[in-house]
């Protein structure tokens, strides 16, 4: 545990998340800024995982930097890699990207003020990971008109007709049944992310908190539906994620799907 950051110094404290246990050695992964190291800091009987970063970049100009997608992509991937490295060793409540404090005292005070909620969330995520599930409609194969088209106009008409074909649709009832069966396997579910909601062909998505012991049941369920939907839909699963979607928000509420 390192020296204190004085208020108004050139460094601020970037928070990755909170754990109950100290992980030793501290994971050797690049920090959010790509330079400084990751540190463990005791706060309110919990462990805060932090990096001391440049104040100008991560506090004074943070909003502007988050509008710069090159900067945001690099920093958010590093944030995730640090959180994932800690999550591989112990349960972590991941902080949202851009959580920065000017002093250890203010960090500790905030953690202390949320201690009950953090303790409750740490119990909930024990032995669990987050998984993302997306269902995509399968696009029909578009074959170009054969040599039968006599003129260029015929060719373009035939091609346009093929391109206007819609993806084969299964029924909404199938998706509801899929969602219900996933809920039976999961500890909790939560609504899917907003950024990837614009992906082409995406019909439905969710996030699940899944006990590690239930992973085989989860995979079996995905395989069952992927077989059933063979030419209709494709299922994409990502994970295991740290439980970003299953921690309480500032008001103690959570955007849950259950």
């Amino acid at each position, binding site marked *: 545990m390192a020296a204190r950051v004085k208020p108004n110094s050139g460094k601020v404290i970037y928070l990755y998340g909170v754990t109950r246990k100290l992980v030793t050695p501290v994971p050797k992964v690049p920090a959010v800024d790509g330079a400084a190291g990751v540190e463990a800091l005791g706060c309110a009987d919990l462990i805060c995982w932090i990096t001391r970063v440049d104040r100008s970049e991560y506090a004074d100009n943070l909003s502007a930097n988050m509008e710069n997608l090159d900067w945001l992509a690099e920093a958010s991937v590093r944030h995730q890699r640090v959180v994932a490295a800690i999550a591989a060793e112990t349960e972590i409540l991941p902080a949202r*990207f851009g959580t920065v404090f000017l002093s250890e005292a203010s960090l500790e005070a905030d953690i202390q003020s949320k201690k009950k909620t953090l303790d409750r969330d740490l119990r909930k995520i024990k032995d669990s990971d987050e998984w993302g599930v997306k269902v995509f409609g399968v696009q029909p194969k578009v074959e170009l008109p054969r040599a039968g088209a006599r003129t260029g106009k015929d060719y373009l008409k035939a091609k346009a007709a093929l391109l206007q074909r819609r993806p084969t649709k299964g029924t909404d009832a199938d998706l509801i049944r899929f969602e219900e069966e996933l809920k039976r396997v999961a500890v909790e579910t939560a609504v*899917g992310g907003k*950024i*990837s909601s614009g992906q082409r062909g995406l019909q439905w998505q969710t996030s699940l908190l899944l006990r590690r012991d239930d992973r085989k049941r989860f995979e079996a369920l995905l395989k069952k539906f992927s077989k059933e939907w063979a030419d209709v839909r494709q299922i994409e699963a990502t994970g295991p994620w740290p439980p970003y979607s299953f921690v309480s928000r500032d008001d103690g509420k959570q955007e849950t799907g259950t």
Partner: protein
Amino acid sequence: MATSNQIVFSGTDASDETSLLDILDHVLNAGVIIRGNLVISLAGVDLVYVGLDVILTSIETTRQYMQGKALPPTKKR
């Protein structure tokens, strides 16, 4: 890694564009909020948390960007 034609399992590293989207979804849109929107210049308040309005703007910017073209690849320093 794909396990069959109709089911795709992938990890959580940004090895492709899809994973980067998912990472942005998770780190921007979820996670513990330790405290709400505060302004660092206020006397006696020494916490900086990027406000919800900034997060929402950032998400919207990313969505608009995605509609036009792929996200920029991550650069290695």
